[in-house]
């Protein structure tokens, strides 16, 4: 799918794409975290009809539904090929002691042998994060390791 990115100075970014069904859709990602979905009814980006406006936490939920599990799913495909290896997601919850600390501070790999291979943060994915990567509440860590290792990471992060 081709996605056109248009910069909206002071507002955010606009993504435009055409679905397989032929609908031309615009998604305005505001800096405040709000997401507007709009449809160009005539197929011409001259005027749009605003369809849905998502508040930041709603957009995050939608992104989580669309995003994190999919990344984990892809790793799940990979882990099927190696016996004993599995993938999981661990959320840094609000008020977690690691909110504001770095990945290295958790000592997750040292203690459990499981690796954090990605951090999903809103719309961004930090692939292969370094120990210096800061953690924030709301981050979803994608973890690969043994079953026990992943549970260990969950315990450490209090999830």
């Amino acid at each position, binding site marked *: 799918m081709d996605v056109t990115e248009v910069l909206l100075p002071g507002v955010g970014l606009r993504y435009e794409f055409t679905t397989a069904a032929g609908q031309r859709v615009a998604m305005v990602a505001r800096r405040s975290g709000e997401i507007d979905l709009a449809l160009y009814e005539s197929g011409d*980006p001259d005027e749009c009809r605003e369809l849905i406006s998502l508040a930041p936490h709603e957009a995050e939920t939608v992104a989580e539904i669309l995003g994190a599990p999919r990344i984990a799913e892809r790793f799940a495909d990979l882990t099927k090929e190696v016996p004993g290896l599995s993938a999981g997601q661990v959320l840094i919850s609000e008020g977690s002691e690691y909110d504001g600390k770095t990945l290295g501070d958790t000592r997750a790999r040292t203690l459990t042998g499981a690796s954090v291979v990605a951090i999903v943060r809103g719309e961004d994915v930090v692939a292969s994060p370094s120990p210096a990567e800061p953690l924030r509440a709301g981050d979803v860590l994608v973890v690969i390791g043994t079953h026990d290792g992943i549970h260990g990471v969950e315990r450490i992060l209090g999830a």
Partner: protein
Amino acid sequence: MTASTASSGFWGPDLLVTAAGGDSASALLELGAVLLGLGLLGVLAGRLSLPGIPLYLLAGLGLGASPWFDTDPAAGFIEVAAVLGVVLLLLSLGLEFTAAEFSSAMRRHLPSGVIDLLANATPGFVIGWLLGFGFVGSLALAGVTWISSSGIVAQLLSDLGRLANRETPAVLSVLVLEDIAMAIYLPVLAVLASGGQWPRALLGVALATGVVAVALWLSARQGERVALAVSSQRDEHLLLRVLGLTLLVAGLAEFVDASAAVGAFLVGLALVGQEARRARELIAPLRDVFAALFFVSIGLNVDLSDLPPVLPAALLLAVVTAVTKVWSGANAAAREGAATRGRLRAGTALVARGEFSLVIAGIAAGVNDELAPLATAYVLILAILGPVTSRLVPTRLRPVTAS
């Protein structure tokens, strides 16, 4: 009975006397009434789908005209709050932009920006000259008519669901270019208005453009490092550091006659990345409160009797610069390939003038007594006229209920 005895004992006679007669008490009461009134006006503005600025100005005019207000203690606080309002407005303006957005606006819309400047600043300058404002006064009036209100326009685009429209990047780019141009314009005006000569003004500009260039370069190359200098995990700490830094720089700028507004703007530009995003969110509510008080103080400082003499000039200026703005805005939209309706939407959206016209009038208020009343009347007209006309542009979309 026991409860009332206990409470009178707790409050004590001294405290009651202080509360009834103290200056701070009446200041608080007045300030509370003013803020509450502004809050209600804000609701009213929302109902009428109008920006708050014109109503806050009217509130200030009304308060200024009422005989009991000018000697009252809250007036002093409002004066200080107004200065903070200007500083916060400019700080958050600087925080709005990233180097990427600025360079994108430059690449695509530099001609639109130049046309915008020529078409809208010229009428202000000429009319100012004809009114006998002299060079500096005319230069100030040129700025007043040139710059659209980013706040009103961005809100309008969002309210009318136009963010995804084809012409919108053009509108926003024009706003960015106008706002960045303020970094050159404001120091010149500030130095000249405070009686400085051209060499000094040019020095001010060189300094400001130098700082802007360094800030933009920093934000493009080393953004995260500058941000680290003020970065902090807790909101409270970040807010205090950013505010402190801004007020210091604003004070220094004021000290060298370059206007506090310019200093605050530069701090905003220099902060980027994650910290800028957080600072923007943290400062927004503060800015809204103090900016509202700034608009009130503009109204307070204008005598109602000063308005009728400048009204014809304000009307003429409003009509002329509404037309030139529609034209220059349409020109910018054409660059994005928008058709007639899109061009009209872009042009009319940009008609609204607001906060920065008033900031400019405030900086140059000492140059000519008629400037502030004229700018106030002018902004009152266009802050209302702009959003109203922009809604009137016909749409091709069927109403939702009909589909």
